[in-house]
C-alpha cells in the first residue's frame, strides 16, 4: 500500500474512532421530555451525527481501499516498467498541488513548528500568573529568535529585544487604557 493510501486510511480510522468515542459520550447525555417525546431530545442529534460519521468514515476507507486495488491491478497489467513510471508520476504530482508555501514547508523539518506550538502553550500557561506584559515579552523574544535565520541572529538580537519590550508595554496600555479591555497584570500588579 502506498504511503498516500495509508495516510488516507488513517483519516478514516481517526474519524471512525472519534465517532465511536463521541457516541459513548452521547449516550450519557441526560434527556428531558416532560410532555412526551414528540420530536427529538437533546441526545438525538449527537447520536445522529455519530452514526453518520461512522457510516461516512467506513465509506471513505472502502473508497481508498478500492482505489488502491484498482491501481495495483492496472499496474500489474501494464507491466513493471510503466509501473515505475506510474509511481514516479504519482510522487511528482502530489506535492506541487497546494502551491509554494506548502511545498516550502515540506522541504524543511517542522522543528520550528513544534517549538512554536510549545512556546504558545507556555505563553498561555504563564499569561495569568506572570501577567500580559512579562509573558508577552518572553514570548515575542523567544518566538522571534526562533524564526530569524541562524546567521542573522546577531544582527537582529538588539532590535528583537527592544521591539518585544516596547510593543508589549505599548499594547498593554493601548488596550487597557484606551480600548478598555482587561488584560492580566500579573506580578507587576
Amino acid at each position, binding site marked *: 500500500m502506498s504511503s498516500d493510501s495509508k495516510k488516507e486510511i488513517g483519516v478514516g480510522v481517526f474519524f471512525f474512532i472519534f465517532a465511536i468515542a463521541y457516541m459513548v459520550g452521547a449516550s450519557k*447525555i441526560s434527556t428531558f421530555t416532560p410532555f412526551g417525546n414528540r*420530536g427529538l431530545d437533546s441526545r438525538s442529534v449527537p447520536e445522529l451525527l455519530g452514526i453518520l*460519521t461512522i457510516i461516512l468514515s467506513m465509506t471513505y476507507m472502502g473508497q481508498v481501499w478500492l482505489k488502491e486495488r484498482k491501481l495495483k491491478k492496472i499496474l500489474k497489467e501494464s507491466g513493471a516498467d510503466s509501473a515505475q513510471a506510474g509511481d514516479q508520476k504519482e510522487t511528482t504530482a502530489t506535492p506541487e498541488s497546494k502551491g509554494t508555501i506548502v511545498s516550502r514547508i515540506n522541504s524543511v523539518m517542522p522543528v520550528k513548528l513544534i517549538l512554536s*506550538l510549545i512556546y504558545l502553550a507556555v505563553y498561555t500557561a504563564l499569561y495569568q500568573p506572570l501577567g500580559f506584559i512579562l509573558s508577552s515579552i518572553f514570548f515575542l523574544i523567544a518566538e522571534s529568535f526562533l524564526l530569524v535565520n541562524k546567521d542573522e541572529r546577531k544582527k537582529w538580537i538588539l532590535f528583537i529585544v527592544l521591539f518585544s519590550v516596547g510593543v508589549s508595554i505599548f499594547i498593554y496600555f493601548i488596550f487597557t487604557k484606551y480600548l478598555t*479591555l482587561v488584560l492580566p497584570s500579573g506580578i507587576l500588579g
Partner: protein
Amino acid sequence: MFHMLSVGFASVFTDPTCITMIFVGVMVGIVFGALPGLTTVAGLSMFLPVTYVMSSHVGLAMLTAIYIGGISGGLISAILLNMPGTPASIATTFDGAPMARNGEAGKALGIAVFASLIGTMLGVAVMIFAAPMLAILTLKFGPWEYFSVTFFALTLIASLTEKSVVKGLLSAMFGMMIATVGLSPTDGTPRFTFGSLQLSSGFHLLVVLVGLYAIREVLLAASAKEQEVKVLEYKMKGLGFGLRDLKGNWFNLLRSSLLGLGIGILPGIGGSTSNIIAYSMAKNASKHPEKYGTGIPDGIIASESSNNASIGGAMIPLLTLGIPGDGATAILLGGFMLHGMQPGPLLFQQNGPVVYSVFAAMVLGTIFMAILMWSGMRMFVKILKVPNHILIPLIVVLCSIGAYALSNRVFDMWGLLLFGFIGLMMQRFGIPAPPFILGFILEGSLELNLRRGLEYSNGNWLDVFTHPISATFLALTLGSLIMTIVNNHRAAKKKLAQGVEN
C-alpha cells in the same frame, strides 16, 4: 430602502472616527493581503479585539474594510513577487508576473487595481440591492425552510471544497460534533462538558475560527523557510494604464465580475476559487487564448475583478441567512455576534441602521482601496520587506488578546491553541477546513430548527417535504450530491484511462 441607505451613508460620512477606521482597515487589509503566507483572515483576527470597544457600526465598518483591502492587496505580491499574497489572487500571477517581468509592472498594477475597483463596486452594488429583498423573502422562512437551506449549504460546501465528497462531509460532521459541546438548544442540557463549567458554554465561534485559520496560518508561515524577498522594480505614472489597454476587455470585466459574484454567494467558496475559474473562462472565450500567460491585461482583469466581486457575493448569504460565504465572512459573522447582532432574516428589521451603514462603509472602503493602492503603492511594497520573524509573533500576541478578552479567561486561549493544532493536522491530512467551520457555525441552527419543525408537526418527519421551499432545497441537495459524485467518478475514470495510456 433608499431612505435607509441614505441614513446609512449619512451615519458613515458624518462620523470622522468611522471614516478613519475604514481608512485604517483598508490599509491593514492591503498589507495582510500583500504579505504572502498571511491572508485576510489573519488580519481580521488580529484586529478583532480592537473593534470590541467600538460602537457596532464603526467596528463592523472596520472589519469589512479589512476584508476589502485584504482581497485586493494580494495583487501586489502576485505581480511584483510572482507569489499570490492570498489564494484569491493566484490567477493574477499567471499574467501579472510575466507582464512585470516584461518591464510593465506599473501597468499590471494599475490594471489590477482598476479591475479590483470595478469588481468590488459591482459586487457591493448587487449586494446592496439584493440582500434586503432576499431578507424579506427569508423572513417568511419557518423551521423546516431554515433546516433545508442550512442542510443544502452544508452539503454544497462539502462537495465544492474537496475532490472527495465523503472527506468534505466528514469534515463538516467533525465541526458539527465540536459544536455540540456545551448546552443543547431548546432545553439547555449539558453535553460533552465532562462536568467542567468552562466547557458548558461551549467553544466560542471566534476561538474556533481564529485558531483554525489564523493560528494555523501563522504556525505554517513560521515553519516555512524565510525567503529573501525580491521585489521587482516598477514605475507607475497616474493610473498606470490607458483606456486602450482595456480595449476588448469590457465584456471580460463584466463576465468575470458576475462570475465572482455568483461564486461568492455559494457557501464556503469565495475569491480563492472564483479567480481561477474566471481566468480559465476568459481564456476559453478569448480569440487569442495562446497569449494568456505571456503577460496580457485580459488575464489580470479576469482574476482581479472576479475575486473582488466575490466580496459582495459572500456578504449576501451572511446577511440574509447567517451563512458565511468564506473564511473571512465567517469572522465577520463572529464580529456581528460580538456586537449583539445575529445575521439572518431578522437582521434588517432589528438592526437596519447598522446594516445600511455597513453597506455605506463598504462603498467608501472600496474607494479608499483604489486611492490607497494607486497612491501608496510604494509604501505597501516596503511593507512586503518586513520580516516574518517580527510580524508572526506579534500576530500571535494580538490574536491571543482577542481570545482572552472574549470573556476574560485563559481557557479561550487554550482553545485557540487546540484549534490551531487541529487546523494543522487537518491541513496535513488534506481535510478541508471550510466544511468544518460551516458545520460548527450551522450545527446550532440546524438542530434547533429540526427540533422545532418536528415539534410543530408532532414528530412527523415527512412534514418537511410538504413545504415547497424546503422540498426544493432538499431536492437541490440531493441533486448537487449526485452530480458531484457522478462528475468525480467520470474524472477518476478519465484519469485512470490516461494513466494506462501513458
